[in-house]
C-alpha cells in the first residue's frame, strides 16, 4: 500500500467520522462530562448503537469465515492502570482523542491545551518507557469472553447485543435524547435548578 492511499483513506474516514461525531453532539464537553456524572446519556446511546451495529455485521462476517478476529492480549496492569488514566483524563479533558480533534474542528480553541497535554504525556511516557515496559508482561495473552466461559462466540455476541439494545431502550424511555441536548445542543441546561444564569 502506498503512503498516498493510506493518507487519502485516513482523511476520508476521518472526515466522515468527524462529521458524525459533530452531528451526534457526542463530542461536546458538556455531553461527555455530564455522562460521567450520569446526568446525560447521549454518549452511551451513540456508543451502544454503534456497538450493536458493528456486532451484528462483524459476527456475521466471522461466521461466514470472511474475517478473522485478533483480540488484543490481556494486560492486567496495563489495562487497569491505563483504563483508570483514560477515564480520569477523558473527564478532565472533556473527550477522548477523536472527540478532542472534533472539538478543535468545531471551534473550541481551548481543546488545544488537551493536545499540548497529550504531547507532553507522550514525551513523559516515552521517557519512562523502559521503566514501564516490564509491567504488563504478566498478562495471560489474548482471552475472549467466549473462551473464558466456554460459550460459543455467536451466542455471546447475541447476548451482548440484546443486553446493550435493552439498555438503550430503557434509557430512552427514562430520558428521551432531545431532553439531554439543551437549548444550544451542547448538553448544557440553563434552566435546571441551581444552574447559573445564561451569561
Amino acid at each position, binding site marked *: 500500500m502506498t503512503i498516498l492511499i493510506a493518507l487519502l483513506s485516513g482523511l476520508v474516514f476521518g472526515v466522515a467520522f468527524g462529521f458524525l461525531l459533530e452531528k451526534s453532539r457526542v463530542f461536546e464537553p458538556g455531553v461527555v462530562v455530564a455522562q460521567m456524572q450520569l446526568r446525560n446519556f447521549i454518549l452511551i446511546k451513540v456508543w451502544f448503537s454503534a456497538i450493536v451495529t458493528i456486532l451484528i455485521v462483524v459476527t456475521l462476517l466471522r461466521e461466514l469465515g470472511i474475517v478473522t478476529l485478533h483480540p488484543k492480549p490481556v494486560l492486567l496492569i496495563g489495562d487497569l492502570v491505563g483504563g483508570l488514566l483514560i477515564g480520569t483524563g477523558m473527564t478532565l479533558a472533556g473527550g477522548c482523542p477523536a472527540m478532542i480533534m472534533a472539538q478543535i*474542528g468545531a471551534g473550541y480553541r481551548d481543546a488545544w491545551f488537551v493536545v499540548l497535554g497529550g504531547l507532553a504525556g507522550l514525551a513523559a511516557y516515552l521517557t519512562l518507557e523502559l521503566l514501564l515496559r516490564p509491567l504488563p508482561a504478566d498478562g495471560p495473552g489474548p482471552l475472549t469472553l467466549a473462551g473464558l466461559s466456554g460459550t460459543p462466540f455467536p451466542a455471546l455476541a447475541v447476548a451482548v447485543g440484546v443486553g446493550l439494545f435493552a439498555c438503550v431502550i430503557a434509557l430512552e424511555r427514562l430520558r428521551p435524547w432531545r431532553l439531554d441536548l439543551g437549548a444550544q445542543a451542547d448538553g448544557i441546561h440553563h434552566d435546571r435548578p441551581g444552574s447559573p444564569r445564561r451569561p
Partner: protein
Amino acid sequence: MCTIRERAWSPYVTGILIGLLLIPAMLFADALSQSVTTLATVTGSPFTAAGPATGYGWPVALLVGIGLGASLSATAAGSRHSAPSPIWTRVLGAPSPKRRAVAGFAGGFLMVPGALLAGGDLTDHGLSGVVQQSAGSFLALAAIMAGGLVTGRLLHRL
C-alpha cells in the same frame, strides 16, 4: 430530518452510521487487530505490536480528517463555537480560562499514556474490543468507567 444544516441528529442514527463507517475502517486496519482511532496508533503501543501495520500516515490523516469533518458539520449547521463550553465554568467552579487550560492539559497528559498502557482508548476497547469479546478490553472499560465516574463525582455538579 438529518440534513447537513441541522445541529443535532438522533444518537441512534449517528450511532448506527458510525458503526457502519468503522467496520470497513477496522477491516482496513488489519482485520480489527489495530487500534483505529487513537493516538496509540500514531505511536504504536510497545506492548501490543511493533507499530501500526498500516503505517503512521493513516492515523495522523484520520485525526486531521476528524477535525475537518467536524468543522464542515458545524459550519453547515451554524453551530461553530467561539468560546469554551459553559460546562467548564460549572464543573471547575469558576469562569476561569486558566483552570480550563490546566484541567485540559492534565486530561491530555493522563489520557495519552493511559491509551498507550492499555493498548487503546475508549473507542478501541469500547468498540472493536467489545465486538471481539476481548476480556482485556472489558477490563480496560471497567477501569475507564471507574476513573471517569470518580472524576465526575469530584468535579462540581451544577
